């Protein structure tokens, strides 16, 4: 809940670059909150644990049973913490 302004933590990797089947967690959004809102609305929020289903240009992520497709430029602005390889 602290500020979502981008900082560049070293262990974080962009969602768009995450490998298929990789489990990740969204740390924060590297863009303004009004852009982050559509993502949060569909469940892509800070702290959410995801799984990458596909990451070609547009990213498909799994949150539980739901599958969300996100444009690559948005996905690239989401920093994630690697949970498992």
């Amino acid at each position: 809940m602290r500020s979502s302004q981008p900082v560049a933590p070293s262990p974080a990797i962009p969602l768009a670059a995450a490998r298929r089947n990789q489990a990740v967690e969204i740390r924060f959004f590297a863009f303004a909150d009004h852009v982050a809102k559509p993502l949060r609305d569909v469940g892509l929020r800070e702290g959410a644990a995801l799984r990458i289903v596909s990451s070609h240009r547009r990213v498909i992520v799994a949150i539980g049973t739901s599958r969300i497709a996100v444009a690559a430029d948005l996905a690239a602005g989401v920093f994630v913490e690697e949970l498992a390889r």
Partner: protein
Amino acid sequence: MIPRRVSKLRWRNTVADWTANPSARPERRVALAGNPNVGKTTLFNRLTHQHHKVGNYPGVTVEHKSGSMLRPDAAPIEIVDLPGTYSLNPRSLDEEVAYRALIGAIEGSRRPDLVVCLVDASNLERNLYLASQVLDLGRPTIIALNMVDVAESAGIEVDPRKLSEELGAPVVSIIASRGEGIEALRNAIAGPLPLPARRRWKLDPCVEQKVEQLAQQLARDLPGLSPQQRFSDALRALTQRGASFFEVHHTPGFWLQVREARQALENAGISSEQAEVAGRYGWITPLVARAAAQPAAAQTTLSDRIDAVLTHRIAGPIAFFLILGMVFQSVFNGAAPFMDAIDGATVAVGNWLGASLPAGPIRDLLVDGVVAGVGSVVIFLPQILILFFFLGLLEDTGYMARAAFIMDRVMKRVGLSGRSVVPLISGFACAIPGIMAARTIENQRDRLLTIMVTPLMTCSARLPVYALLIAAFIPAGAVFGILSYQGLTLLGLYLLGIVFAVVAAWVLKRFVVTGDPSVFVIELPPYRLPRLRDVAWRMFERSRSFLRRAGTIIFAAAIVLWFLATYPQVDPKLEIEASRAELSQLLSETSHAQRRAEVSARLAALDSAQASYALRHSAMGQLGRFIEPAIAPLGYDWKIGVALISSLAAREVAVSALGTLYSVQDADETSTRLLDRMRADVNPETGNPTWTPRVAASLMVFFVFACQCLATVAVVRRETDSWRWPLFMFGYMSALAWIAAFITYQGSSLLGLS
């Protein structure tokens, strides 16, 4: 893919735990709220026994609609189906409709007495975010836990009693698609109203304090607001920047306090805009862990495996175009026997009327006007049904959202996003629902661009025009014995519409509707086996609508066109009369069979010339010849011009107009097939055929681009709240149609084509 097995879940509900008012109000108004694609309309149809369109993709419902839940022992209860929304902080028009309806801000309708909030049991955490906002409104609320079967198949077991305790509201488990649990929900809706839930989640203490201060300010400014409404308004004002219509009733002093509160939070390093999300999920996440047993490990589903192909960067677009190709091949090849049967029936009715009625204007009106005009359109019903069968399958399986995903790359390049694809594909059925579906696009620039280009998508009303011209002038052979030339031509026309919709969007984005594009985020629903009953109902609805149009607009147009093509009647030219008298004399004097045949043929040609002369001098002929100079460069004669003008009422009327025109002109012809008459038509002035493949191609291209539909213009006027955009759309599409048809006709001439 969701299996169709019967759920073994025992239906439990916790309504009795939360009721206070023992008497049900007879005029009860119940709103169905929930995330997109959670099954609200399916439930609405179950409760009200209506048949509104459902589909397996987000954004099927964009307007609120109401119906009555009838019970034998009680007064009717009004059920209101709302568009899906992810939160009560609306971003798009359809979400705003849902929010306004829930707070009673829609003109002419009051606040609901009860809210039934549908949540997807298989995606509980995300769905409870909206549910928590609905509960905060302070209205009696029932949580309908839908898709329990889907949750079970994913290994998720939800405990409704535990969930109810945690939420502070009654929970009823249902499977709306199969009608399971609906009776329990009906009883809950009709029974005593549950007590409104109290807020159980907490904000960050600093934010909570600011919201309380703002709520106190609201209590002073607007004493009529309930405590829950004060809290909701204060929270929204603080956490939603650029909040829209609900700001207007707040005072400048309140907004000053909001700005100060935001600044104070920012100085403390706290994001006010994340406060609500963090607070609600901070409550929901552990709640879900307590109320639902989740599978230990993430599962790769059958939908994931299908998506590995259908959303693949190379295989996905190939599959998309193969699916479209298969649809249009089927439209042509599968409909032929049924069309022949309708054609035969139309001919039989015409012949029967011709033989039964005495000669005169009434018989001519019925045979040449009504039967020829209406029959020439009704014949295309099988093709429209096949098209809607496949569109229904695409919508029900969940492929529509994948199409949006695949096309996002192309749409991005022209300044739109994949969100525009669902309205555009809906335009294959009819531009009007496509334009309405654009309400789901939150970015106003993207929404306007989508509205402007959706009518370029080939709607089903164009199909009769294409089908007639393709059948008449495209050979029936096939490439490799599989892909028919006719089906490929139809596919080409659909693709032409798609390509130019994209091109038009690009041009409009650069020069007319400027601004930043919206972001692309879309939920991909799990693939489902299509419910054939829903698909069949949609086909039935479409055929009923098509036949209603045939029985009203096209019927009326056929009668008007017959009168315009028949009157004013002119005396035949003197030389025609003299030739007829001479030939009739010759026929009566000749007994030689070959000679008699020659004279009879000359008499028939004379009759045709006379009919043609009369038609040219009828009101329709004069109108057609008036516009002929404008359309002659496109290869059209005045009869085609009349068809173009008539098609402004509805595109299919062009076919009906040609049917009536050729029936009036060739009243004595034995062939009753419109395409045969068109092929045989000769320009009396030049002696050349009126119709050639070049003319047909030019006319088809004209129909790809022209906005020949006044209903579409009216809907664009309503959706943009201005005449500027519908007039602009009509103008640019008409200009595009003329230029494209000109290039097609004159270009093919330069290439030496006939």
